[in-house]
């Protein structure tokens, strides 16, 4: 054999050779789907309803808010109920990506120490799990929309680009936090407080239009504020999102994704010696 089959050399500029890396990641897509399937099976393993929990969970959540708004609150505010459920479900896509992503690398220790593969596969798998959990909630949100008799229009097709921005944001966040957690292991214990704060600071329990301008000016630093606002406009109000909202969330999503991925790839070679 004259041609060497595979060559390992020092990384240039701290990054692995990208073309080979992406090819290798694509080659292992079966891992990502198998991981998501096993993870979901394992999370609901042994429970009476099994995988049905994926649908039951959002249904129960919305039942709680129904109780809160209609029964305890005594109002019949369809828009508020629709807004609360729709934005909360999208928020969970981001939050579940973060929770799944934070330990993606540290808990993959055995695999990382024993096998050569693109490490980014692990946080990406965590986001795929979060997407699988999100899809049934999307169906529930649509069902609620129909039952409540909320408006429809072609503008609702904006849901797809908004969802795409959300997925890019979720990927960026998961990739970044999985890498940070290798260096600071207590990040995973702080994460519940971080996501809880994000929940209250974002337009979920309230609508973006109801907060005062003086408070709203600070929301420019909240990466998901305008994302959730856009989602609510599209899904609940059947309107087009604002251009500002789209640009704000796209810039945040892309920046987090690019910075997070660069940070991850440039540190990736360290993982096997840091775990």
């Amino acid at each position, binding site marked *: *054999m004259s041609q*060497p*089959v*595979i*060559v*390992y*050399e*020092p*990384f240039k500029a701290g990054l*692995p050779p990208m073309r*080979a*890396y992406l090819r*290798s990641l694509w*080659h*292992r897509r*079966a*891992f990502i789907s*198998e*991981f998501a399937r*096993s*993870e979901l099976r*394992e999370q609901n393993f042994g429970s009476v309803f099994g995988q049905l929990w994926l649908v039951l969970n959002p249904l129960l959540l919305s039942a709680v808010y129904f109780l809160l708004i209609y029964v305890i609150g005594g109002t019949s505010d369809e828009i508020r109920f629709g807004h609360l459920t729709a934005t909360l479900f999208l928020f969970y896509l981001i939050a579940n990506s973060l929770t799944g992503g934070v330990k993606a690398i540290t*808990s*993959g*220790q*055995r*695999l*990382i*120490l*024993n*096998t*050569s*593969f*693109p490490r980014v*596969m692990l946080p990406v798998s965590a986001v795929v799990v979060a997407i699988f959990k999100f899809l049934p909630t999307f169906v529930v949100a649509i069902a609620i929309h129909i039952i409540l008799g909320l408006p429809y229009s072609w503008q609702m097709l904006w849901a797809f680009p908004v969802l795409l921005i959300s997925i890019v944001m979720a990927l960026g966040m998961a990739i970044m936090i999985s890498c940070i957690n290798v*260096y*600071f*292991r*207590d*990040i995973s214990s*702080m994460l519940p407080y971080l996501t809880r704060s994000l929940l209250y600071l974002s337009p979920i329990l309230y609508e973006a239009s109801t907060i005062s301008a003086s408070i709203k000016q600070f929301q420019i630093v909240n990466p998901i504020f305008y994302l959730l606002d856009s989602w609510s406009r599209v899904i609940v109000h059947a309107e087009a999102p604002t251009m500002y909202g789209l640009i704000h969330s796209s810039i945040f999503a892309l920046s987090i994704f690019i910075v997070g991925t660069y940070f991850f790839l440039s540190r990736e*070679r*360290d993982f*096997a*010696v*840091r775990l």
Partner: protein
Amino acid sequence: MISLSDFNHQHTQGSLAVSVQNLGLTYTTSIDKKPTLKSRIKSLGRGKKHTRIVQALNGVSLDVHYGTVLGIIGSNGAGKSSLMRVISGIVPPTQGRIEVHGSVSTLLALGVGFNQAMTGRENVYLGGLAAGMSRAEIDANFQAIADFSELGEAIDAPMRTYSSGMFARLAFSVAAVVEPDILIVDEALSTGDAHFKAKSLNRMKELRTADRALILVSHALATIEDLCNEVIWLDKGKLMARGNPTEVIAAYREFMNVRKSASSDEDV
């Protein structure tokens, strides 16, 4: 990164399997086992060091040909595991070049079972897919892996219920059943009961064919002497000697001042 499915070549004895040229590996690692933000903030301004630089390998050059069973010996921290990890592509080198001519299967210290909440079966699939095998290839090998590991119905139990011996049996079975061109085994023969130890040793002997290369790291010098036809001795990241097992082991023993005692030979 290589896939086992990509290469099913027939290699002729004596052709090059792995070529390591002037390999150097230096890395920075944290001093704390579990570094935290809290400890970092607490020690701010105290000038405490959090990381240390390790020079694991320095100027190592070596060729491994097909048909060779290469043993790697050396004291703790000599760079044996680092060398294995660099050859397997797990850690990229900081200097030098490595060429690998064939598919590699690695059985390094920890083995399979990356998610302990999942079953043995799921972990075998995930491990195989991560290594670049296709689902069909794992399907084809799965029964043989399960049979070799002798786990029986436990293969479908979550791996957190496994004993360390069961872990090791499954890990060895995965690496050894797949029949790679190049098999790298790091200290993995020392687990399991006497029966499985003998079985895995036999399997290693079966795998010693002309069209395969085996690289074996162990502290058990007798096993190395028994299995290998070539031995290298590493010390502090440098290649000290290479050659005939008996001679290299004798030199190593002399260097370490370790006499052939029961304690160093007991474990395989």
